């Protein structure tokens, strides 16, 4: 039997999906009226409604004129539709903020950086959890501490050194994105690797698989869920990253989206181009909203695993 045939019990999910037991009906008389509970539910619903309202406001305002935005915040957009230019704000933002190039830069930069981050972090996480090397535990902790280092602490020496070797551009930013995403990704992936049963590795070894093969053909495919989570969370984080982009990107033609939005804010505020600005915000936010809607469950389980372990 070849190694690839090693059967893994519950296939792709790194943690067996456990269905919560059926919730029994509350015992009669136990649902007492409680002011705390009423207050809590009210706040929860107000909060939720508030969030939906805010999203509604953002979406409608991106189609409005400044006058409409501030005098009729809850109405549906009207003016631009009447003149037959419903996407006027989006076109304005797209042309004036240089979003066209920024989208390309951001997609390539964020895409490559997340893939490389996971490609570098997954073997490291495997080595730290599964190879039984002395000192792995403390080493994992040292890497995890890196999550607590604010970017501001490392940015000054990094900027000076990288600009000396002329890497104060999108290439330097790519390396930084990969390096600074490593602590979180390694930490997240160790959680996934640790949850795999030992028997799989042993079975692969008995079948004569080399440790290398065991990793690539048995263990790595089993953490596919973890890798997708790591990719998604890093993609969201880097898509939204602004501080490093402000410091390292000087050439407007290579701005990332959040960087372009930052510059656009200063320029468009002076001209009171509020419709365009809100459309700009929407352009940056909407791709993440779509990603979130598609992957919400995975993002949330990933965060939970990262924090709960």
């Amino acid at each position, binding site marked *: 039997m070849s190694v690839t045939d090693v059967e893994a019990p519950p296939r792709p999910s790194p943690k067996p999906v456990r269905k919560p037991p059926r919730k029994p009906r509350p*015992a009669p008389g136990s649902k007492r009226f409680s002011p705390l509970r009423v207050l809590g539910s009210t706040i929860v619903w107000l909060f939720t409604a508030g969030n939906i309202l805010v999203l509604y406001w953002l979406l409608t305002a991106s189609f409005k004129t400044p006058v409409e935005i501030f005098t009729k915040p809850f109405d549906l957009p009207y003016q631009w539709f009447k003149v037959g230019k419903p996407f006027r704000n989006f076109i304005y933002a797209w042309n004036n903020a240089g979003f066209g190039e920024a989208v390309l830069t951001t997609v390539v930069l964020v895409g490559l950086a997340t893939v490389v981050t996971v490609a570098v972090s997954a073997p490291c996480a495997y080595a730290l959890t599964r190879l*039984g090397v002395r000192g792995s*535990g403390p080493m994992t902790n040292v890497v995890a501490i890196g999550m*607590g280092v*604010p970017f501001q602490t490392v940015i*000054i020496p990094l900027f000076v050194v990288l600009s000396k070797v002329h890497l104060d551009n999108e290439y330097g930013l790519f390396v930084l994105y990969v390096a600074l995403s490593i602590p979180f990704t390694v930490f997240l992936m*160790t959680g996934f690797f640790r949850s795999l049963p030992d028997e799989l590795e042993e079975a692969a070894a008995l079948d004569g698989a080399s440790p290398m093969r065991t*990793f690539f053909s048995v263990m790595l495919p089993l953490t596919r869920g973890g890798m997708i989570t790591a990719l998604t969370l890093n993609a969201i984080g880097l898509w939204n990253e602004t501080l490093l982009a402000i410091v390292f990107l000087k050439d407007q033609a290579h701005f990332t989206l959040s960087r372009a939005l930052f510059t656009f804010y200063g320029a468009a505020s002076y001209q009171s181009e509020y419709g365009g600005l809100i459309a700009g915000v929407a352009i940056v936010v909407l791709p993440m909203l779509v990603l979130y809607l598609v992957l919400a469950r995975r993002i949330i389980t990933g965060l939970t695993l990262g924090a*709960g372990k």
Partner: protein
Amino acid sequence: MATVTTPATPPARAVKAGAHLSRKKRLFWPFAAPALVLYLAFLVLPTIATVVLSFTSWAGAGDTPEPNGVTNYTQMWASDSFQYAFRNTLIYVFLGGIGTFALAFLFTMVLRDMKGGKIVRAILFFPNIVAPVALGMFLGFVFKYQPGKQGLANYVLEGLGADAAKFLAPSNVTGVVTASLIWASSGFYITILMAAVDRIPPYLYEDAELGGASPWQKFRNITLPMTWDVVGVAGVLWTINALKIFELVFVLAGPGTYAPPNEAWTLGIYVFDRTFGSNGTPDFGAACACAVAMIALVSVLVVLLRRLMRRDAIQF
């Protein structure tokens, strides 16, 4: 600062040493080295460099750092801008933290057995995927004060018959940012806490209900003790995230192109303004000192928090 504890690899593997095991161990460095080297080169070394440079007088690129002892620290501590930055950062960490966790706890009490709880959680989480820059700009429109062209918040206030407030004036902005932070980040902590709450065996709650426990008693005697460890981790995450807050305040409190007024500063803005901000003269030495203050503050707060939260684990 031990953020995480890692259980040692199972001892079973260490016992049966053999050819296979040593082959496995040979894999360690090729696998771990790339990530560890990057980590060392881009996080550990720069942090050390920042600490060293914080004891020099250094205007920035082109200037040579000259050792000057603790001058940066004493000057920084005496300056108004640092005092404001330090105060505001602590407000965000503590006041924002208390607000966020109070809200999160309240929600866990309600969401546990609420219909549609999953959807509510997803909606509350949403602000966390929005870029802080975009969030700051967006909140800027919501809290805009300009008679005749009021933002959403003042529009509602005026609609209710109240007076419009200058939310973004330097003296008010800290409070507004604290509230915004609580609003934006509570979803994240609710999600984490709720995942822990979902793991609590339901029979504990049923038992408490039969005994006639109030929601507060259930929270105090079941939810809180059973999620204590996760609360601790969430607290550490909050401290780390709140301490480096930068973009949100920068955009919300200022014009966006240069730093906002001193009163609204955070430590992150201080570092940025002394180095890469377009307003004012660069002083990299002082910025390094502030960066060191940031990481020292993170370490102290995290260690304190872990101390406070330490107790024997509950198995269930």
